[in-house]
C-alpha cells in the first residue's frame, strides 16, 4: 500500500443536545450529572404508552432565521448549529475558500442520521391528506432525504472533497466520524466536518419503538427512566440533537497553528449478522470491532482509561457490551472507567455517536470522565468499573485514550478511539 497514512486530530467541537445549546453547556451538565429527560407535553403524546423523551435544550428556531429554518428538517437544523460551533471552534472565520486556511477541494463533510427527515415526511403527509397535493412543500424532498444534514453542512462550509452520509441506525454518527478519519488518513481530504444528528421525537417513531418493547415506559419518573447498568433498567429514552467535530490531518492543523483537542486514533468496525434488532448476546460482534480497532492502530490497552459506552439502558445490550470489553481486554478492563452518558442525554440514535464523540474528546482533553446517573443497584452481570453518580478525574499525567462505542439496529458495531497528544 502506497497510500498516505496520516495522523488525524480533532480541532473543533460542537453540539446541541437535551442538556445544552452548545458543547460547553452540554459538557457542564454531563459532569454535573443532570438529566435532560422530561415529560412530553405535546397533544399527540397523551395517548402514547411512552410519554417521556429528552428534548433539545435550545430550540433551533431561536438560532436559525425562519426563512432558512423552514427549508430544513429539524435534524438538519441541529446539524447546522453543531457544525457552525465546531467550525468556529476550529478557528475558521468563514467558509472554505473565503477563509484561506482551508482549500475547499480538500474539505469534506460527513454527517449522519439514523432515521433522516422523518418529521418532515410525516408533517407533509398530513398536509397532503388535509390540504391536498398542491400544498405539499416543494422543499420536502431535500428536507427529508437522509443526506440532507450532510449536504447542508457541506454547503455551509463549502466542502468539495466529498459529502457523505453513512447510515447504520444508532451507529450512524460514529460511522460518519470513522469515515471522516479514513478520508483524511488516506489523503482524500485535509479537513472533514463530521458527526451525527437526529430529530425523531414524534408520535410515530415513539409508537414504533415502544411497540418493539425497546423503550422505557417510566412516564411517572422521566429523569430516572434512562438507567444503564441498573438491575431494573427497562429500555431506552429517546433523545434528540447533534454532535459534530472537525477532524484534520495533524500536518494541516500544525501548519495553521490550530488548537488540538486530541488525536483521532482510528475506528474498529464489525457486523453481528445475528438478528435485525437484537444484539449478539455473547458480545462477540462487538468484541470483533474492538479487536479490529486494536489491530489496525497503535493504541495500547493500558492507555485506554475512559469508555463512553453505547449503554442505552436495555436489558440485553448493556451486558453484551461489557462482555465484549472483557473478552478483548481481560483484566486490563479493570482500569477503564465506563461512562454511560445516555443516562443523561437519552438516546440520540444517529446523533449519539456525534455527541458522545464530543464527550469522549472532552474527557481526554479535560481529563475527567462523566458519570452514569440513576444506578441504584448495579446489575451483577456488569463486571466493569462504572463511573457512578459523580464525575471522576482521569490520570493527570501521561498519554490517555478514550473509546466511544456505538451499535445500531442491523447489527452494526463501530468503536472510535481518541487519545491525548
Amino acid at each position, binding site marked *: 500500500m502506497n497510500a498516505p497514512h496520516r495522523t488525524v486530530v480533532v480541532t473543533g467541537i460542537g453540539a446541541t443536545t437535551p442538556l445544552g445549546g452548545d458543547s460547553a453547556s452540554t459538557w457542564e451538565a454531563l459532569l454535573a450529572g443532570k438529566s435532560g429527560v422530561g415529560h412530553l407535553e405535546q397533544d399527540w403524546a397523551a395517548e402514547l404508552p411512552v410519554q417521556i423523551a429528552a428534548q433539545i435544550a435550545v430550540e433551533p428556531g431561536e438560532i436559525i*432565521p*425562519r*426563512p*432558512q429554518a*423552514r*427549508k430544513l428538517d429539524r435534524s438538519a437544523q441541529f446539524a447546522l448549529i453543531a457544525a457552525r460551533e465546531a467550525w468556529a471552534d476550529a478557528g475558521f472565520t468563514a467558509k472554505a475558500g473565503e477563509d484561506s486556511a482551508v482549500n475547499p477541494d480538500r474539505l469534506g463533510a460527513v454527517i449522519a442520521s439514523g432515521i433522516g427527515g422523518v418529521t418532515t415526511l410525516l408533517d407533509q403527509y398530513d398536509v397532503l391528506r388535509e390540504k391536498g397535493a*398542491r*400544498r405539499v*412543500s*416543494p*422543499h420536502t424532498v*431535500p428536507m427529508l432525504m437522509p443526506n440532507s444534514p450532510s449536504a447542508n453542512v457541506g454547503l455551509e462550509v463549502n466542502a468539495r472533497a466529498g459529502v457523505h452520509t453513512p447510515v447504520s441506525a444508532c451507529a450512524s454518527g460514529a460511522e460518519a466520524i470513522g469515515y471522516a478519519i479514513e478520508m483524511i488518513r488516506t489523503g482524500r481530504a485535509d479537513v472533514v466536518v463530521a458527526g451525527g444528528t437526529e430529530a425523531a421525537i414524534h408520535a410515530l417513531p415513539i409508537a414504533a419503538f415502544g411497540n418493539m418493547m425497546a423503550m422505557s415506559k417510566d412516564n411517572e419518573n422521566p429523569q430516572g427512566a434512562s438507567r444503564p447498568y441498573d438491575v431494573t433498567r427497562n429500555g431506552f429514552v429517546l433523545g434528540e440533537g447533534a454532535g459534530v467535530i472537525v477532524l484534520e490531518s495533524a500536518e494541516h492543523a500544525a501548519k495553521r497553528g490550530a488548537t488540538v483537542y486530541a488525536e483521532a486514533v482510528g475506528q474498529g468496525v464489525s457486523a453481528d449478522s445475528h438478528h435485525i434488532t437484537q444484539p449478539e448476546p455473547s458480545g462477540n460482534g462487538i468484541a470483533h470491532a474492538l479487536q479490529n480497532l486494536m489491530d489496525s492502530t497503535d493504541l495500547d490497552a493500558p492507555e485506554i482509561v475512559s469508555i463512553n459506552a453505547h449503554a442505552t439502558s436495555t436489558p440485553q445490550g448493556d451486558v453484551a457490551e461489557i462482555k465484549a470489553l472483557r473478552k478483548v481486554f481481560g483484566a486490563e478492563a479493570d482500569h477503564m472507567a465506563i461512562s454511560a452518558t445516555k443516562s443523561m442525554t437519552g438516546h440520540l440514535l444517529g446523533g449519539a455517536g456525534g455527541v458522545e464523540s464530543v464527550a469522549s474528546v472532552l474527557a481526554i482533553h479535560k481529563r475527567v470522565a462523566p458519570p452514569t446517573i440513576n444506578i441504584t443497584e448495579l446489575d451483577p452481570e456488569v463486571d466493569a468499573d462504572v463511573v457512578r453518580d459523580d464525575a471522576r478525574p482521569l490520570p493527570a499525567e501521561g498519554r490517555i485514550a478514550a473509546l466511544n462505542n456505538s451499535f445500531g439496529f442491523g447489527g452494526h458495531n463501530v468503536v472510535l478511539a481518541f487519545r491525548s497528544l
Partner: protein
Amino acid sequence: MAATQEEIVAGLAEIVNEIAGIPVEDVQLDKSFTDDLDVDSLSMVEVVVAAEERFDVKIPDDDVKNLKTVGDATSYILKHQS
C-alpha cells in the same frame, strides 16, 4: 372583489417576506424574484401557491417560468383573478 395592483404588490410582499425573509418594503414591481429577492426555483413554487390562495387565481406550472419579476406576477394576477 378583485384586488388592486397596490393590494397585490402588498400581498406578494408579505408572502416573499414570509418565505425568503426579505423586508416588505424591498418587494417592488421591478424586483426579480431570483436575483433580488432570494427566491429560488423551489421557493418560487411556494410563492405561487400562496399567491393562488390569497388572490383566488390559478397559476399553471407552465406560466410560472414567465413570472420573473414582482411586476410580472402582479400583472398576471390582475389579469387572471376571478
